[in-house]
């Protein structure tokens, strides 16, 4: 096979076939990708979980937990304490927690942290975490396990975690005199949900300098260039961008943390435990830990679930089972997509610490009622404590960090998994569809100036039948055409081609490409500016100003970007130029989807699924053609508009509110959807600034530029 730029290559068999069927092939690949993903729910295509780590010795040890009375007492005391003193405040009962932990002979410390809220007008939040360290009696403090619980004030709209904290204290009381701990256990109560946890982890690992933004979470590979950092342009944004979260310092430390269990129990009499695993940017804990927790819940007689997969529900038939698996996987995809941890465990993952959250649920839970939930026997402190004990004793046996099992997987059921090797093909298929289209475009571009030649060669074929002499003559003529020696008949066509070659400006294409990406980068850094302007001049809350700021920016970009392609040129666009842009953007989008999908499959997959139709439909519009053609072009443009990231978010939120509140009027629903979209964007911006969530950055710096280019392509029309 020759090079792609080989002039003879257009005549290859496969090129002709590709040109003919690339559209069909792309569609088939796209459908195949979706089909592949859906089929992963079937038992034949996923695997049963198993333990890879020998050292865990799961559940071999008899339970000795006897802290039920203690836990009940802690629970009641804690409730009373909250009722007496903390009814109206959001402050954590630090003295009570410190006192209780000290009484259990733990090493107790408090930890203060400060948040300079990036999108507020210099608002500062402070918080305190309390933690107690149980030192392993017979070994040095080189390794540690963490048992944590977030503190939620009574005024919080979320479920309380009082039972979780009580259970943690009771477990600490039980564990303190045991002599078999080979790792320290850190009992941690954090304030302000994930903020406290993030601050504690950063302080624990000595990240003093900077809150992990998108750039710093890229590690040492890429440092933000002060040249490019737009925040340095305006003094407005500078101060805030530098440091959002000041984690402070820890007074006491233990060793390297091997694993963490986060407890969220509101009452002891829960019906089942939901094991939450998705972390920041869709990072997952090692499958061994997830597996361990599920297995040991079974052993301790605690019902457990993951998304739509419930340990006590036996599906009636294969179809039901498959559907449950698919919905569980989709649930996982939607959680991972946002990249927001669904519990405090999610922040551990970035530090290489495997962590899960155990959330207690009962009937009437905000997450919805699973089938037969009322028929379940309730758990109690004893069972939960026993489960926690076996999990921790198993973790205590660990000799090295979790590394044996999968880090990239999807869970269709509590006991089954889909590994990265099984789900990646679906993403690869979508990317392949885009790449096939770009390849087809490329070969057609190569072929463009040879259409005449084709005709000739057909003629040549005919003449071949007639005799050898004429065929050689034709060949000679062909050669003459190929070597650009103007023949008598072809002189006009060649001249035209030469002209187009002259005007095919790579610089122009490149500049446009560069500018568009620079714009994306600017949009990524814009929310701080918007919120400042909004609060300064219009006195708007930051989410409103950010949302409308982004909306206005998008509108402006949408209107202006089609003209950007002509920045440096005077004449009209050429087909080849637009086609080249199209090829480049298809390759870029496919690469983005694949590389994002390698880190966070869900995000990559959803991006690919949503953008691929636009990418496959968009193409160079050639001027002329009938009415149907112009309708088709308009339809393409409409599809492109809909797939704008901001539109997608807003539409998604409107549909979601329609599902949640089906009875309300449409205007209400749209209002709700808009508000929800505002919130969602605000959260993603804040998460990106404080925690280093990628979603907003990916959407603005990667998806938005590619979208703009597709929009440009769809809006441009060229002469053939």
């Amino acid at each position, binding site marked *: 096979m020759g090079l792609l730029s080989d002039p003879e290559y257009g005549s290859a068999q496969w090129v002709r076939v590709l040109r003919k069927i690339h559209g069909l092939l792309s569609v088939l690949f796209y459908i195949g990708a979706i089909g592949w993903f859906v089929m992963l729910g079937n038992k034949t295509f996923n695997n049963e979980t198993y333990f890879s780590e020998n*050292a865990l010795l799961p559940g071999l*040890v008899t339970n000795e937990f006897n802290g039920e009375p203690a836990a009940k007492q802690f629970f009641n005391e804690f409730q009373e304490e909250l009722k007496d003193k903390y009814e109206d405040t959001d402050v954590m009962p630090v003295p009570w927690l410190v006192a209780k932990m000290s009484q259990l002979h733990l090493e107790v410390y408090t930890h203060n942290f400060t948040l300079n809220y990036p999108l507020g007008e210099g608002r500062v939040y402070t918080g305190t975490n309390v933690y107690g360290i149980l030192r392993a009696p017979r070994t040095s403090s080189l390794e540690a396990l963490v048992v944590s619980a977030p503190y939620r004030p009574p005024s919080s709209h979320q479920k309380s975690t009082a039972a979780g904290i009580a259970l943690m204290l009771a477990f600490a009381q039980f564990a303190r005199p045991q*002599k*078999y701990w080979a790792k320290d256990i850190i009992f941690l109560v954090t304030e302000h949900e994930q903020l406290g946890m993030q601050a504690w982890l950063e302080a624990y690992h000595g990240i003093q300098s900077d809150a992990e933004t998108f750039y710093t979470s890229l590690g040492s590979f890429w440092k933000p260039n002060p040249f490019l950092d737009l925040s340095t342009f305006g003094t407005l944004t500078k101060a805030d961008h530098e440091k959002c979260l000041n984690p402070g310092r820890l007074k006491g430390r233990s060793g390297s943390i091997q694993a963490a269990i986060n407890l969220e129990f509101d009452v002891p009499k829960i019906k089942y435990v939901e094991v939450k695993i998705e972390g920041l940017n869709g990072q997952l804990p090692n499958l061994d830990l997830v597996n361990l927790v599920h297995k040991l819940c079974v052993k301790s007689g605690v019902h457990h679930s993951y998304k739509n997969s419930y340990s006590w529900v036996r599906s009636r038939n294969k179809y039901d089972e498959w559907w449950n698996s698919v919905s569980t996987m989709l649930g996982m995809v939607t959680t991972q997509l946002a990249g927001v941890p669904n519990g405090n465990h999610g922040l551990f993952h970035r530090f290489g610490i495997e962590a899960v959250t155990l959330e207690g649920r009962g009937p009437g839970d905000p997450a919805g009622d699973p089938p037969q939930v009322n028929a379940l026997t309730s758990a109690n402190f004893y069972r939960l404590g026993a489960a926690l004990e076996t999990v921790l004793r198993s973790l205590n046996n660990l000799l090295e960090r979790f590394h044996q099992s999968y880090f990239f997987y999807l869970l269709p059921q509590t006991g089954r998994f889909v590994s990265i090797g099984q789900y990646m093909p679906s993403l690869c298929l979508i990317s392949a569809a885009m790449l096939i289209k770009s390849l087809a475009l490329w070969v057609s571009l190569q072929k463009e100036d040879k259409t005449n030649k084709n005709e000739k060669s057909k003629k040549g074929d005919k003449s071949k039948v007639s005799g050898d002499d004429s065929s050689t003559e034709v060949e000679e003529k062909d050669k003459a055409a190929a070597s650009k020696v103007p023949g008598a008949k072809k002189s006009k066509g060649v001249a035209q081609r030469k002209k187009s070659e002259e005007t095919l400006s790579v610089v122009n294409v490149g500049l446009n490409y560069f500018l568009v990406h620079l714009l994306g980068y600017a949009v990524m850094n814009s929310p701080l500016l918007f919120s400042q302007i909004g609060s300064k001049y219009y006195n708007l809350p930051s989410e409103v100003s950010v949302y409308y700021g982004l909306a206005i920016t998008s509108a402006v970009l949408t209107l202006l970007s089609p003209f950007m392609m002509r920045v440096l040129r005077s004449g009209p666009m050429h087909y080849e130029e637009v086609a080249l842009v199209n090829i480049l953007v298809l390759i870029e989008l496919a690469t983005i989807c694949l590389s994002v999908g390698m880190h966070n499959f869900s995000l990559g997959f959803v991006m690919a699924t949503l953008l691929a139709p636009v990418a496959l439909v968009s193409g160079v519009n050639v001027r002329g053609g009938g009415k149907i053609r112009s309708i088709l072009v308009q339809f393409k443009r409409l599809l492109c508009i809909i797939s704008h990231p901001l539109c997608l978010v807003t539409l998604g939120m409107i549909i979601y509110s329609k599902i949640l509140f089906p009875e309300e009027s449409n205007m209400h629903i749209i209002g709700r959807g808009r508000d929800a979209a505002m919130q969602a964007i605000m959260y993603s911006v804040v998460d990106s600034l404080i925690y280093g969530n990628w979603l907003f950055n990916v959407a603005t710096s990667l998806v938005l530029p590619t979208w703009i280019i597709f929009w440009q392509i769809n809006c441009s029309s060229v002469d053939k």
Partner: protein
Amino acid sequence: MFISMHTWFPIFIVILNSLYCTAIEIPKKFQNSNHTNNWAVLVDTSRFWFNYRHVANVLSIYRSVKRLGIPDSQIILMISDDMACNPRNPRPATIFNNAHEQINVYGDDVEVDYRGYEVSVENFVRLLTGRLSPDTPRSKRLLTDEGSNILIYLTGHGGDGFLKFQDSEEVTSQELADALEQMWQKRRYNEIFFIIDTCQASSMYEKFYSPNILATASSLVGEDSLSHHVDSAIGVYIIDRYTYYVLEFLENVHPNSQRTMTEFLAVCPKSACLSTVGVRRDLFNRDPSKVPITDFFGSVRPVQVTTNPINILDTPQRKRKNENKTKVQEKMGYLPQFPVHLVPNDK
């Protein structure tokens, strides 16, 4: 001439006799082992808490061997990891080989000769072949001679043709076979009884080519050796199946027991072990059914049998002569050894 004829004749008879015997049967007289001392090399090759059972295995065999009479000075005990002092051990300073926890096999009188990272392939091979540096202490040497019967017991994690040491290196079956051949050529043993309890254990003795080795393994190639049961108080698999049944058998063996090696080789049927116990007899010249188990597990003591009764009542009275001025120091002697092995051990 006559004299030379006189000396040659019995030798000729002996040679004739031996040729005759290998063909049909070794006479009973020759079946008795002519070993003069017994040694044991007991090796646990795996470390880490979840391999507790291997340490329990080797210590149990150590205990039995010692009970049957091989002294500590003739047992080389190699243990890769210190389970007794592992911080995960809820029973600190003890190692049990049974969930009933009746016998602490890591009792008061356990002499570990090679411990921790000293248990390496190099040290093991050097120990067997005697190629140790001159400053090696006596307790770390296998001071055997051509009259020594050696019991070699290995446990750990193995595969087809290798045995893993310390999670970092392994000894292959060929290396082991060569080491044993070197021992034979250096006249370091009379007979060897080789026991190995690992996965695919029989692969380890397949390459042996030196004479007088009887070998048995807990599993055949392609089979896993399994653990016997869990001690849920300690939270580990406490002993391996094969060793468990070996111990059950050895507990009923006494130093003067008449049980034979055949009984030992059949100690763990497939129904109990779940793996097939492999035996290799072809290198061993004697019939295992006529070899007493104490040839390997017990210890030879220098005993002289006399048919003449000694009348101890008629001891000649020594006349005390006070007039002797030179003070002769009273001669000290050793008391006869207390027959420890005959005392019932009800611990």
